[in-house]
């Protein structure tokens, strides 16, 4: 494969990992729902154990997303993580507190008390979804950083990639486009969490409440999502001249991308329809199938958003401080050799998905109910 083909292949993989991550954040969404859905401690226990059996898959997907991004587009890793320091640190802290909370929340002598761990889970659900959405928003709105490889030869300040604002990423939260995507992802994760409960929990009352609450989340989601979509389709975007690799501003760039890549548009529309169908099924039919539609829909929608940001001669991590510092899938990628090695490794992915699928299936033959949880001495 040519270097460009490998870069595109890896951008698709990164996009897929990103979209899987957003889908799997139904765990985070579920965490934010528990305090609203559960009235008794046993209800809380059922809900936390329901999403709790999945939390580490989401977590692992995040870690793999980071690793894969590092391996395939190291200059993004170096620029974004070191630059948007505070945003990433907040995201990471929220996952650190999540990782212990399930295991420790109901254990005797757990030092902080069950309430604190439940709050940790709520914080994780709130902070991680919103901030990850905000970071992805900057793929369209840009950030203030500069890149100069010759800094390596200077005395004193040798750092190639530098953030030029004092807020180190927090400034992104003040941008309406970023914020609307953050809130869209947050509300979407709550919808997915509710659909997951409807599918996984064997308790009429909880299912009823989840289905009811989901209606409100859905309205909020639609507002934020339409706002975000409207904003990016009408704004100017960061285009790359394929001959010179020069970055310039183009009016309606993302709208053009949709028109010039009809496949991406179709993926996007299918995705949106899937999410809406899932919401309908969950809210009005109270059927467990909703999560499948909304889940597949989420994956397709997010996939198309990533492709919109990176393909068709677009800078996926633009710099508003210095346009020519913007990162494209061509200038930010690994060498051809590394991408080739990694492509062989990526052949393992279907196998990984297969065993995850198999073990999930074998574990969730039965829905979660009260009796089960009380009798299980390994329960959270």
């Amino acid at each position, binding site marked *: 494969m040519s270097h460009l083909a490998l870069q595109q292949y890896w951008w698709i993989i990164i996009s897929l990992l990103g979209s899987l991550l957003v889908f799997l954040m139904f765990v985070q969404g579920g965490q934010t729902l528990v305090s609203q859905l559960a009235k008794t401690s046993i209800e809380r226990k059922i809900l936390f154990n329901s999403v709790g059996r999945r939390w580490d898959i989401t977590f692992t997907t995040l870690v793999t997303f980071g690793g894969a991004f590092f391996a395939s587009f190291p200059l993004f890793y170096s620029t974004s993580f070191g630059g948007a320091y505070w945003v990433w640190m907040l995201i990471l802290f929220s996952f650190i507190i999540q*990782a212990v909370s399930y295991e420790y929340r109901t254990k005797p002598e757990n030092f902080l008390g069950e309430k604190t761990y439940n709050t940790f889970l709520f914080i994780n659900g709130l902070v991680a979804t919103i901030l990850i959405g905000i970071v992805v928003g900057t793929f369209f709105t840009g950030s203030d950083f500069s890149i100069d490889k010759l800094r390596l030869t200077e005395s004193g300040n040798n750092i190639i990639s530098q953030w030029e604002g004092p807020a180190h990423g927090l400034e992104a939260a003040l941008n309406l486009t970023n914020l609307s995507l953050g809130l869209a992802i947050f509300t979407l994760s709550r919808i997915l969490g509710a659909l997951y409960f409807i599918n996984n929990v064997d308790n009429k009352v909880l299912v009823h409440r989840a289905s009811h609450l989901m209606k409100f989340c859905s309205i909020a989601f639609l507002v934020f999502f339409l706002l975000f979509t409207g904003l990016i389709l009408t704004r100017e975007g960061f285009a790359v001249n394929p001959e010179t690799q020069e970055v310039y501003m183009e009016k309606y760039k993302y709208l053009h991308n949709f028109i010039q890549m009809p496949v991406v548009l179709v993926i996007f529309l299918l995705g949106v329809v899937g999410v809406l169908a899932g919401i309908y099924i969950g809210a009005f039919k109270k059927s467990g199938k909703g999560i499948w539609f909304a889940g597949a829909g989420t994956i397709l929608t997010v996939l198309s958003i990533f492709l919109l940001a990176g393909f068709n001669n677009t800078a996926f991590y633009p710099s508003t401080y210095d346009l020519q510092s913007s990162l494209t899938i061509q200038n930010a990628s690994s060498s051809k050799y590394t991408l080739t*090695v*990694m492509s062989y490794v990526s052949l393992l992915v279907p196998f990984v998905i297969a065993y995850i699928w198999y073990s999930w299936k074998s574990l969730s033959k039965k829905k979660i109910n009260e009796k089960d949880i009380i009798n299980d001495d390994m329960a959270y």
Partner: protein
Amino acid sequence: MEAFDMSLVNWSRAQFALTAMYHWIFVPLTLGLSFIIAFMHTRYYKTGSEKWKNTTKFWMKLFGINFAIGVATGIILEFEFGTNWSNYSWFVGDIFGAPLAIEGIMAFFLESTFIAVMFFGWNRVSKKFHMLSSWFVAFGSNLSALWILVANAWMQNPVGMKFNPDSARNEMENFAEVLFSPTAINKFLHTISNGYVVASLFVIGISAWFILKGKHLEFAKRSILVASVFGLLSSIFVVITGDSSAHNVAQIQPMKFAAMEGIYEGGEGVGLTTIGMVTPGKRYDNNKNDFVFALKAPKMLSYLANRNSNSFVPGINDLIDGNKDHNIIPISERMEFGKLAINAFKEYNNSEDAEIKESALKTLEENYQHFGYGYLPDKKSAIPNVPLTFYSFHIMVSLGFFFIVLFGAFLFFSVKQKIESKKKWLKLAVWSIPLGFLASELGWVVAEVGRQPWTIQDILPTMVSTSHLSTSSVQVTFWAFVALFTVLLIAEIKIMLHQIKSGPKNMED
């Protein structure tokens, strides 16, 4: 090349050391305990005996408590290369990122998927699949160790790559060389076997405590038997792999090796210090003795370094000032070569003229092996912290031999059915739990303090590796980590102690 923001560099280092050392409290236990559990689980599968089931479940619970905090402290490390070592990630991301990604794809999913089955599979999946899941967890966790250690080994021994002046970074040329470098292999084997030792000490120590309290005797004896066999084999293996690690370090990182042994003046047929105290205030440029006292095993160091008991081992002074007889270039010259390389890199990029570009490239390539020296402010900055490296190394090694004796004794008493009467040994075993963790942490101190000032040996110094942040930002996150990790550690220990005290459930014995 002066005026580095040293406070930023030091705080970044402090943060990395802090997070890595916290993480490393939990990882070795995961590496080893997972195999012990898989073995016990298999005994249950084969015999169907409730006793083995309860034994498995007891250790599994402790495993889960430990694993959760291991994951919590681990996620930060994956991202910290970016957040705090942005320049490093730029400079070597083309090579360093790959093992991290492979770790995720190959190992983390295996681990996390089957941990869920291992914990929640009782009565939900078939007995066989359940037992196999325990093995998958063990393989998954050890596989993840492989990839991160390959990455670390590459920093210490950067092979299989070439600098690309157009992209200002090193690019991978040979993945097999990266994966199978002797440093990577030694590191992997030494580290996983260290995990088995730590876990065996943990199991024996807790079981010994039960025996001292006169509780769960049969359970405790069963656990001790498993762990002492596993521990004895692993501790012997730790010494063997430690020996080949040291030999490897002598070849590729002679400065680290000299610091480990605290020798300033090199020589032929050098002895190995078994017990010693380095002279306080000894520096490369004063004439104090290396040691206040030292008990030396004659010629052993030369043997360890070069597999030849009369061979030459360079000391710190030889490495700083050079040694013509042994082809060692003085640091001051290497600093000059390094500056040549850096300037050639600049010239290559600033010039449009093909001829100038070509000659610059030639100079760059010829001097690239000294690239990082061009950044050093003075020659003494090429020396790591000697006392810290020396003591860490010697305590680790002494503990290694002590563990062999301990495991040997417990295996002997186990077989002879005499454990209950050996009160002193039982107490010693309880106190050895922290010693296992200590040896393990000290190992990393040797490896990481000993290689300073480099993040990439000879190519990139630590002070050129950071992100562009204010010191105060890093201070804030540093203290946030201190607070959060300490609170979580306290919670972990309290939960763990409670679980241990309540003992294995439903045990008649």
